[in-house]
């Protein structure tokens, strides 16, 4: 270690000071290696032009200009020098000595460690994950990355995501989940939720039926065709879509209940364990179903918790969720904390289910708050147009790459961006909807959408059903079936969900959550 000249000079001047000489020693703003530094001497000296530089010891990259009264530059770290640094000024009028010394403080970026988690812990998860592919309908780029905070503490990533393109249905399913750090098994909760919700979506949309036995998919596509061709309200399909989406959420919830039982822990936590976490499972869930039908893009979404789920229609941004916001900053509602037996559960689930359709939809983006807190700091409730534009410029260019695999790799790197104070896990799924519409996918879709493969020509009776839907006929096909009679823990009972039919009439006129919060 090189001996700092600073110590010697400062000590000799302190000795002079003790002997009654005019020496003043002052502390200036500390340096941070690698960060631009400016210090105005006039904040210490009354008449900086009456001083001359007697001596100085400053890190490489920093210089002093006494005439200008400035110390400035970008300090470069020397492997063996830690300071203290100083400048020694002499006042030409009264020959007093002025010492200004500069400490060095660590750059917070250098304090972040990257510690491997204990691999013997249950539910290990890779630090990153990514996925990139393209077909005639969509290009998808997705990545997830362990945040600096988890790296620093040697903890696993808690975010998760799944993407599946169902060839048979020609539909894209996206699930993104953010495990909550306060719960021991949140990384497993996010994995379960992503996996189970997509299994459920596939099943519901392939084979799911309404209570009266009609194929859910058929009901949705009929209603959607009527909306497109006959200007029927899109609301008509809301109950079916709600059924599909909330079944996915409920299927995930049941898996969580099962997992908690297997682990022998309460689902929602209980007291804190020795590592300061609650034992249970807690994670947000953002779900999207994306498909093209009769020349229109259509998206169904469901969300609980925070994060951002949006559709881009050219320059227009539509938020396809209602962010949960507690009174405080980061309070949010994980799937495991939904009150499934609440008397207003149907309304709540319906309010969480959005239908968005547009011929010009260009992108769907789903992200955890690790991304949005870093790049869209005003939060999801009021996307700042400037922030949003910058964000899109940064990430959408990856779609220009010829290989989506490579694009996903690039996105994974991008997710490591450094923004002070925001170091959560980050997950971003971006879907670019292919504008080149050869409509080649649609006949196949329609054939599957209808038992007989007929063109969507509606009968009078169909029409009547649609118009009366959810209104006079309590037994009609719009009934939501949220339960399949699976047994759950008493504490986490979902039995009452069967009662949702009782509140059927209250759904009447519930608006479909079409585009809101447009910029």
């Amino acid at each position, binding site marked *: 270690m090189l001996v700092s000249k600073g110590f010697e000079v400062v000590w000799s001047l302190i000795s002079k000071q003790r002997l009654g000489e005019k020496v003043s020693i002052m502390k200036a703003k500390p340096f941070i290696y690698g960060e631009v530094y400016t210090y105005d001497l006039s904040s210490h000296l009354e008449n900086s032009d009456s001083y001359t530089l007697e001596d100085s010891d400053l890190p490489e990259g920093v210089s002093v200009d006494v005439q200008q009264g400035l110390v400035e530059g970008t300090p470069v770290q020397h492997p063996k020098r830690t300071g203290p640094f100083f400048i020694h000024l002499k006042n030409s009028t009264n020959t007093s000595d002025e010492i200004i010394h500069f400490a060095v403080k660590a750059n917070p970026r250098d*304090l*972040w460690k990257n510690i491997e988690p204990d691999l013997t812990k249950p539910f290990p998860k890779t630090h990153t994950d990514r996925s990139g592919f393209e077909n005639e309908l969509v290009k998808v780029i997705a990545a997830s990355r362990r945040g600096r905070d988890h790296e620093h503490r040697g903890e696993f990533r808690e975010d998760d995501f799944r993407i599946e393109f169902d060839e048979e249905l020609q539909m894209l399913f996206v699930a993104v989940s953010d495990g909550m750090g306060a719960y021991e098994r949140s990384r497993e909760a996010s994995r379960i939720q992503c996996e189970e919700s997509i299994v459920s979506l596939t099943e519901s949309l392939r084979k799911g039926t309404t209570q009266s036995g009609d194929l859910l998919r058929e009901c949705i596509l009929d209603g959607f065709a009527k909306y497109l061709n006959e200007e029927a309200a899109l609301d008509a399909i809301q109950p079916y879509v709600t059924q599909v989406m909330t079944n996915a959420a409920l299927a995930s919830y049941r898996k969580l209940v099962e997992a908690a039982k297997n682990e022998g822990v309460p689902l929602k936590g209980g007291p804190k364990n020795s590592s300061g976490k609650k034992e249970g499972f807690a994670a947000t869930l953002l779900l999207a179903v994306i498909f093209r039908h009769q020349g229109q893009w259509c998206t169904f979404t469901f969300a609980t918790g925070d994060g951002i789920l949006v559709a881009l229609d050219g320059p227009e941004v539509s938020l396809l969720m209602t962010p949960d916001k507690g009174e405080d900053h980061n309070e949010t509602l994980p799937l495991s904390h939904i009150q499934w037996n609440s008397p207003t559960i149907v309304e709540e689930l319906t309010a969480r289910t959005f239908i968005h359709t547009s011929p010009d939809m260009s992108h769907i983006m789903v992200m955890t708050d690790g991304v949005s807190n870093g790049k869209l700091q005003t939060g999801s409730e*009021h996307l700042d147009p400037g922030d949003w534009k910058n964000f899109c410029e940064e990430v959408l260019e990856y779609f220009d790459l010829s290989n989506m695999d490579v694009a996903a790799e690039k996105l994974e790197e991008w997710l490591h961006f450094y923004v002070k104070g*925001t170091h959560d896990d980050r997950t971003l799924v971006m879907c670019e909807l292919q504008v080149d519409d050869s409509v080649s996918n649609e006949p196949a879709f329609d054939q599957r959408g209808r038992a007989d493969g007929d063109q969507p020509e509606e009968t009078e009776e169909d029409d009547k059903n649609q118009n009366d839907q959810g209104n006079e006929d309590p037994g009609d096909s719009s009934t939501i079936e949220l339960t399949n009679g699976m047994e759950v823990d008493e504490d986490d009972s979902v039995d009452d969900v069967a009662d949702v039919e009782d509140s059927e009439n209250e759904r009447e006129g519930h608006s479909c959550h079409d585009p809101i919060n447009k910029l």
Partner: protein
Amino acid sequence: MRRLPVYILADTSGSMSGAAIQALNNGISSMIDDLNDDPMAMETAYISLITFSSAAQQAVPLTDMMNFDVPELKASGSTSLWQALQVATEAAKREVNWRSTEGEKGDYKPLFFLMTDGHATDEPGSILSEFNSVKWGVKVCCGVGTNVDTDTLKQISDITLQIESDGDSIQQYLQWVTNSITTVSKSQVSEVPTDGGGPTDVLAPIPVSVVIPGTLVIV
């Protein structure tokens, strides 16, 4: 960026002189050093130091860890505790970036830690209601020794406790304050459920060994 504001109120009345004021100085110094070593705390915590004796003043306005200069506290005079609350209330209203419009994310709710070894020598007036109109994240009052007006402290805080007046206890208590700031700054990174825990849930585990038995009150 969302900051985590922390208001530390320290009694510097004459009765604190000796080991107590020395422990307070050392404790605050170590606090800033420790927080400068934890990247999350260093990036998000902002601390203000308010001292009170015959008068109360904001010795250090809300400052980030990097630029926090630890002043040397000296003990003398009486105990203007209520005035200190007034100074803290005004400072929090002025310095914290409160969520002004719906949807905007302001700073995190400020933490409040008060330490005193005696009885207030000034009058409360209407300060308490003003103080309570600030949305504090968590309010902790620590009495040093047994000659403390705990009834007053209980009116102010979510958590009230008393510790022995020796230097070690004071430093250990301040270490807990430091750990709590670190813990809270960490918990801000990840979400908490809307029905999640009370005030003690977000802080570091209370160092029971320095608390005088039977004095811990959590509202």
